[in-house]
């Protein structure tokens, strides 16, 4: 079977539960909605800038957060399938092992798209203005980022196959620092020097800046380019590491 057909078949299998239960997508928006509803007003109140301007920087951050948390935990599914035996079943199927990783990672794009759209629409009545082309490009950026981060989460699952505590430990220990050090919720302009240095090494910082720039309609900025480069590099690394891990899987 060709890699493309096999990847398509794996992708289809992964999407089936989502299509059967579309409400699960909306349900998993609860966390970002909590941030939007409880953290947003705090941010608006503590900033001298008008609410709409705060939202303009906050909403793109929330969209990246959806992608970050949605794909960061996705490896747990694979971990579970490795423990039950359904992963083993796919390993004996006559399909390239790499398709098992790529198909899964590609699937990650779908929920992100749906969720980000819903989220952007929900905030418009509150004064968030969005450039439609910018939103479209912003979704593409999120999809590439989600693909890469999802692939990394699957790699982590494959690496933790014999110790599932390792998966949860590493995941917990990295997601929040990555989130805070990307300026996703609180801008890092007034952060101490060391945090700014750390943020400069965090690819998600670039994705967040690009997302802000795109949704504001600043389509051809350096921030946009930087975001796409960061997401593409992350996707390349994620897929590379993930495919290697999947090929070694037994």
């Amino acid at each position: 079977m060709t890699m493309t057909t096999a990847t398509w078949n794996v992708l289809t299998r992964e999407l089936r539960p989502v299509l059967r239960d579309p409400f699960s997508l909306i349900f998993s928006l609860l966390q970002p909605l909590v941030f939007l509803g409880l953290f947003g007003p705090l941010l608006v109140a503590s900033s001298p800038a008008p609410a709409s301007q705060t939202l303009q920087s906050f909403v793109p951050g929330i969209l990246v957060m959806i992608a970050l948390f949605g794909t960061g935990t996705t490896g747990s599914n694979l971990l579970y399938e490795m423990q039950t035996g359904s992963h083993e079943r796919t390993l004996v199927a006559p399909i390239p092992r790499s398709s098992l990783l790529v198909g899964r990672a590609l699937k990650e794009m779908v929920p992100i798209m749906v969720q980000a759209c819903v989220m952007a629409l929900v905030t418009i009545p509150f004064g968030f203005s969005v450039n439609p082309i910018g939103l479209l490009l912003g979704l593409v950026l999120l999809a590439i980022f989600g693909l890469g981060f999802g692939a990394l989460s699957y790699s982590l699952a494959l690496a933790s196959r014999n110790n599932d505590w390792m998966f949860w430990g590493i995941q917990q220990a990295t997601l929040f620092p990555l989130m805070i050090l990307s300026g996703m919720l609180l801008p890092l302009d007034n952060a101490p020097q060391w945090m700014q240095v750390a943020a400069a090494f965090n690819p998600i910082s670039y994705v967040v800046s690009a997302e802000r720039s795109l949704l504001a309609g600043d389509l051809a900025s350096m921030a946009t380019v930087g975001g796409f480069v960061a997401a593409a590099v992350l996707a390349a690394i994620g897929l590379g590491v993930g495919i290697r891990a999947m090929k070694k899987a037994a």
Partner: protein
Amino acid sequence: MTHIITARGLTKTFRVKKAVVDAVTDLDLDVQRGELVAFLGPNGAGKSTSLRMLTTLLPPTSGTATVAGHDIATDPAGVRARIGYIGQGTSAGHNQRVRDELLSQGAFYGMSRTDAAARADELLESLDLGALATRKVLGLSGGQKRRLDIALGLIHSPELLFLDEPSTGLDPQSRANLWQHLLELRREHGTTIFVTTHFLEEADQFAERVLVMDHGRMIADDTAANLKTTLAGDVITLGFASEADARAAASRIPTSSTTGSTVTATVDRGDLLLPRLIRELDSVTSATLRQPTLDDVFLALTGRSLRETEGAHA
């Protein structure tokens, strides 16, 4: 080519921390096309590990094997395209629906959508899963999950099928149903079946060849009937009115032992010997013949009963 499985010196050692586990040692195996082979052994004997090497899931530590005409080490893809495997675990994804998972499995094996759908419905029907087609796997009972595992393994009607304890967790009716399926596959497609089981009666009844593994080594390989006659034998027990009668009779039956007024002897073809003994010894008051089971074979081979070992591990 008549051998569909050939293995030479297949060995697997695991390293867990500092300890070395010899899971399978020096497995030599030739299985003819179309054979139905049962693979027995207590927990931890190395059955699953052997199967996982033959199905390309685990690279052997040493040794070679050719499965369905392809080398497991140099051409695993060639092997995978020709076999089916029902593992010891649950094959279906927990968040999938029953029929969806069958369709995905069909696609993985290169079946067209319509073929996969037709075959899926056929299997759902015959494995009594029809009513569960749109149910989530997570909510199925253990036996229902097992039946789905079997359906998933059969969807592409492979020429060689490996099954790792397929009947575990099944009720008697589902077990009978499973075997009906396997026998039918064999009759219609000449499928070679390699199955591990803890149900000795299954092996006895259906397999034409029985392999016994213990501590990673193959310790017997023959038909069930041969194993039973060569390794176990029939047990005849005769009762007498008095101890004196018993002793007198025992002196005329070689290899017999006497306890009180009862004489016990392990013999070949007890079914022929027993009527003769009853005719010749008119003091006999009761007579039983117990024909051996595969458990007696295991006891003879290892000094342990398979059932006892099972119990100790379970």
